[in-house]
């Protein structure tokens, strides 16, 4: 048991604190701090996917008025630590993927820098490249672990035997394409190097993490690096440290005291700042006649970069979702001449649950059981992966409440029998899950500001997640103050250390630190502190995490309409019911969920990064050709929470909800499209071309 905080502000749907700044366009994102005479940096990117630079001709660029310098591996300062090849920017002539930074122009204006970059001529000794992910490759290998440290393969019982003797069998392969995060704000850095101190205004999910890594890469004392990131225009996992930041810092070194501004173009967002690996997922299920799963296997093939391993944990959710005696999950990687993949909203769960929850739908149909009933019938007692009991698991309640709200009763399971005008209609359901993740190392500092007011400092991030407001609410409750009495400061490495915003871990990690700091503050200064009284603390480890498996669960429902003539798909309505412990702020939490589910619409229907194997890079590298949902693609969302009391997860009783929204969405949609059309699409995205008859 963890002592749960008293909730007064927590649980209220407060308006965002950062609202007025954001709606007036006065919240300052990284590029938007004013400097006198900044310099602008524009990169030159490789036009081969593999090879060596043989020459760089920068004469035309250097001759252009306004160009200060052209950086390349021939003249750029040496980095102290190049062990992580992603950060070894302009350190050698080796090219590891198409689009890698091979030079950069520093100039007095953005227009001059960009045009100058187009005049730099790079020659290469080109080598054959390999960028194709296929399941039949003979060089697939098993990584030591899959992110963030799970076993690569797992096995319970004897899958082959159980599957062979199953009364009902299912055996299909699903694929998800490469996807790019595409936050609305591109990666942005403004770097200033002065007297050995590096200052960055950065669009990042983890200012402290970035600063620590940069210090290592540049061989600096940690306290010589300062990063500010108060407002960040979205991340979804890609706004961690990539080559662009290192390049900006190198530019600042060369610029000797002038600030260097570097924002990626949207085109450049498709290369080198992370992406979700494509996946090829082989799912086999065996069940008894009465629809009880006796065998589950989930074998994943996905890609990584030759230069840096990233192993997406695609089959991990399958280890915990359903009860069975025999289960096997495996992950195999193809190392390619590509940039490194990175975490993209619900890494592992998002692609993995598309496959599993589509397969569960297909299997339910095969067993003649309603898809909701099928899942309930296979609900586990304990977490098979760890052997531990769940701290709380209310998937069944989510399915049942969702069914009630959505109107699932009396659903005719037959596909392709409902038509309204030219629209075929159907409904689908899928389960969602996301683990409760806590990163250690976050520290909060509380200072009494007099008159019942407090300053609360922690280097946390708000990338649209609502951190500014949620942490204010938690601080208010643990300090016995009103939310307007809390002056929260986040997004700066001069503030106490904070873990990266990722893994839906923010509130758990940072909130716990604030709770602990308040406890220490009260212990030291009592309930009537004087101005200047201060306390600082890190969240203690949670021993409950060794005794319980901690996950949030949810159920996602979709209504699909498919045009009988064209195969165009519309999702006019989705329902999502989630059991995620206590909801800190229902207004911002609902936004997280509709945001995740809307991204799920994109995952299901639109998104696909197309790599042309002849060249090695993504060809559809802009918003006109890489489609994310537009306003007309988002329908109505009905979101509800199961009131779940979990005293084990953290002092707030909350579970992370930033990613669970996307997890079940794509399968719910695929299942609804099947119900509407009778066409089962196992390869995302579900485009009209795949449905038109």
């Amino acid at each position, binding site marked *: 048991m963890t002592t749960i905080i008293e909730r007064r502000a927590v649980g209220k749907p407060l308006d965002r604190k950062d609202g007025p700044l954001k709606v007036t366009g006065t919240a300052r994102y990284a590029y938007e701090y004013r400097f006198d005479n900044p310099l602008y940096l524009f990169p030159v990117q490789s036009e081969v996917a593999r090879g060596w630079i043989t020459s760089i001709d920068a004469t035309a660029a250097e001759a252009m008025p306004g160009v200060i310098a052209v950086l390349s591996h021939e003249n750029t300062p040496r980095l102290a630590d190049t062990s992580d090849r992603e950060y070894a920017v302009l350190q050698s002539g080796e090219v590891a993927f198409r689009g890698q930074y091979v030079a950069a122009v520093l100039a007095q204006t953005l*227009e001059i820098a960009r*045009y100058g970059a187009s005049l730099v001529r790079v020659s290469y000794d080109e080598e054959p490249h390999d960028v194709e992910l296929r399941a039949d490759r003979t060089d697939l290998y098993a990584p030591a672990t899959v992110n963030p440290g799970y076993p690569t393969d797992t096995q319970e019982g004897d899958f082959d035997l159980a599957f062979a003797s199953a009364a009902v069998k299912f055996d299909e392969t699903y694929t998800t394409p490469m996807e790019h995060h595409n936050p609305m704000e591109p990666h942005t850095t403004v770097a200033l190097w002065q007297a050995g101190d590096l200052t960055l205004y950065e669009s990042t999910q983890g200012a402290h993490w970035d600063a620590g890594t940069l210090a290592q890469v540049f061989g600096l004392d940690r306290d010589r690096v300062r990063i500010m990131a108060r407002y960040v225009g979205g991340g979804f996992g890609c706004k961690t440290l990539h080559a662009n930041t290192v390049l900006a810092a190198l530019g600042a070194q060369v610029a000797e005291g002038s600030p260097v501004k570097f924002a990626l173009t949207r085109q450049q967002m498709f290369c080198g700042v992370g992406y979700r690996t494509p996946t090829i997922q082989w799912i086999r299920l065996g069940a008894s006649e009465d629809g009880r799963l006796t065998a589950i296997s989930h074998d994943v093939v996905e890609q990584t970069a030759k230069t840096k391993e990233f192993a997406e944990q695609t089959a991990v959710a399958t280890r915990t979702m359903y009860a069975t005696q025999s289960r096997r999950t495996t992950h195999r990687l193809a190392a390619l001449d590509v940039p490194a993949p990175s975490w993209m909203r619900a890494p592992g769960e998002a692609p993995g649950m598309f496959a599993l929850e589509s397969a569960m739908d297909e299997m339910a149909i095969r067993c003649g059981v309603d898809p909701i009933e099928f899942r309930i019938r296979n609900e586990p007692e304990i977490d098979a992966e760890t052997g531990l009991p769940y701290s709380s698991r209310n998937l069944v309640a989510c399915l049942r409440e969702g069914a009630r709200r959505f109107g699932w009763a009396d659903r005719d399971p037959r596909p392709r029998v409902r038509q309204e005008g*030219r629209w075929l209609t159907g409904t689908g359901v899928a389960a969602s899950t996301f683990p409760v993740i806590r990163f250690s190392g976050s520290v909060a500092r509380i200072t009494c500001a007099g008159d019942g007011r407090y300053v609360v400092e922690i280097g946390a991030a708000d990338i649209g997640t609502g951190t500014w407001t949620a942490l204010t609410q938690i601080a208010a409750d643990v300090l016995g103050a009103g939310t307007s009495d809390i002056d929260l400061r986040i997004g700066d490495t001069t503030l106490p250390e904070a873990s990266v915003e990722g893994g839906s871990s923010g509130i758990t990690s940072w909130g716990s630190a604030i709770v602990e700091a308040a406890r220490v503050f009260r212990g030291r200064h009592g309930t009537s502190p004087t101005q200047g009284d201060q306390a600082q603390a890190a969240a203690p480890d949670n021993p409950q995490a060794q005794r319980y498996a901690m996950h949030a669960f949810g159920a996602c429902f979709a209504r699909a309409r498919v045009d009988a003539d064209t195969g165009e798909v519309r999702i006019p309505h989705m329902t999502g019911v989630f059991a995620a412990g206590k909801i800190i702020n229902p207004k911002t939490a609902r936004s997280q969920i509709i945001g995740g589910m809307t991204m799920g619409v994109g995952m299901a229907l639109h998104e696909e990064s197309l790599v042309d194997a002849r060249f090695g890079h993504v*060809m559809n590298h802009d918003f006109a050709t890489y489609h994310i949902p537009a*306003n007309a*693609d988002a329908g109505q969302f009905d979101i509800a929470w199961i009131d779940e009391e979990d005293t084990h997860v953290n002092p707030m009783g909350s579970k992370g909800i930033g990613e669970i929204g996307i997890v079940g969405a794509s399968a719910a949609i695929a299942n609804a499209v099947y119900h509407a059309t009778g066409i089962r699409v196992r390869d995302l995205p579900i485009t*009209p071309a795949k449905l038109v008859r």
Partner: protein
Amino acid sequence: MKTFRYDRAGDISGAIATLAKERTGVFLAGGTNLVDLMKLGVMQPDVLVDVRRLTSTEIQDLPDGGLRIGAAVTNSELAADRRVRSRYPVLSQAVLAGASGQLRNLATTGGNLLQRTRCVYFYDTTTPCNKREPDTGCSALEGFNFGHAIFGASRHCVATHPSDMAVAMTALDAVVRIQGPGGERELPITELHRLPGHEPQRDTTLEHAELITAVDLPPPGFASNSRYRKVRERASYAFALVSVAAALHVRDDVVRDARIALGGVAHKPWRARRAEDALRGQPAVEESFRAAAQAELEDAAPLRENAYKVTLAGNVMTRMLLDLSVS
């Protein structure tokens, strides 16, 4: 972007005279396609001659009952004009299916006609493209061509024209009014855009320094019974997989006349004359419509990834003609 000289001429003749002397110059109107391409280095003009305020911003009634649309009329204004909406609904619908509200507020009639293909290889200066650089090859032929042509392509170029407005104007037999160094002339819109042949770098038949000054629509006739349908992957704000513009004249359950044009299928808006010929005199029933669509699609030459366009075009043509026959 390469530097350029910005020139604002005082009148049309001056603009033409200026551009005639600048072989590497272009006209600038709304800029919504030109500036886009210049940022990527796809087009690198040395001179921009701004004509946005020179040609007419009016939509005038013509004595014969048609309309004259000034080249500087914005897409928004064109789509909102009550005469266009009631007499040539296919045109209003086509314009509204294109781009976004913001783009339609700046994009002009002239500029919309002259917009260039959105082929990803054309847009990427690091991949071979005969349209951008003759004799470097067509990367789409063996590449990603699910959005490319099923009619009229050549092995030099399989790109499609992206304008919705042009498709509707093609169905309406619009006439483009042009002024150039050689004087004024008129051109049926079907002769404005080219098929790629062995010169894909030439999108249109316009000579250098020729300026579109207006587009004339003939008297509506049965155009008031017309419609535009655009099929795309997203519900809005995306280019067409396939689009259809059609006008239908039915009397006594027999098709008297039809006008059909297809978008997203060729280097120019595709006037479906075979379908039109197949329809005249036929009973206004689904079988006739489907047969007419088949007649047009018989000679479609799909690429590796775009065979679905043939099915799609057939279905949409059939459905639209059916809807028009009962309205």
